[in-house]
């Protein structure tokens, strides 16, 4: 799991340590990556060139480094974490999963 933004690593550290401050988060055990040059967001096609910030892109990358799924939300639309976990569960099974499949349901 890697979160990525155009923030500096200092801003990301402050965010991770912000706790109950407004907009703060609790401690994370995964990486928050700084993309100050904006090259990563640009490479992944999620840089909003007008604002200079990344859109809410989510990429599922398999153990061989191949992109298996992605979705992109605008800044004002938060992600559906359950949907992301469902996709990850389905993909890591390596079997065809039908429409509305949920973890624990039969595969095809």
């Amino acid at each position, binding site marked *: 799991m890697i979160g990525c933004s155009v923030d500096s690593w200092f*801003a990301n*550290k402050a965010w991770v340590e912000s706790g109950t401050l*407004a907009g703060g988060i609790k401690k994370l055990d995964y990486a*928050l*990556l700084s993309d100050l040059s904006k090259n990563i967001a640009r490479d*992944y096609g999620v840089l909003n060139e007008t604002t200079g910030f990344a859109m809410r892109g989510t*990429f599922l990358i398999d*153990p061989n480094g191949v992109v298996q799924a*992605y979705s992109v939300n605008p800044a004002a639309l938060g992600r559906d974490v359950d949907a992301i976990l469902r996709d990850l569960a389905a993909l890591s099974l390596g079997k065809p999963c039908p429409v509305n499949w949920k973890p624990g349901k039969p595969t095809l």
Partner: protein
Amino acid sequence: MAVNVGQKAPAFAGKAVVGGAFKDIKLEDYKGKWVVLWFYPLAFTPV
């Protein structure tokens, strides 16, 4: 879209915060594992 399903994910490297400490990471470090790479506009944005 610069990235397509079924294609190699663009390589990246940079300075990250992991468990409160600064660490240099790269995509290659995660070889053999599934990776969820998620972009967000800015720290402290609540959406």
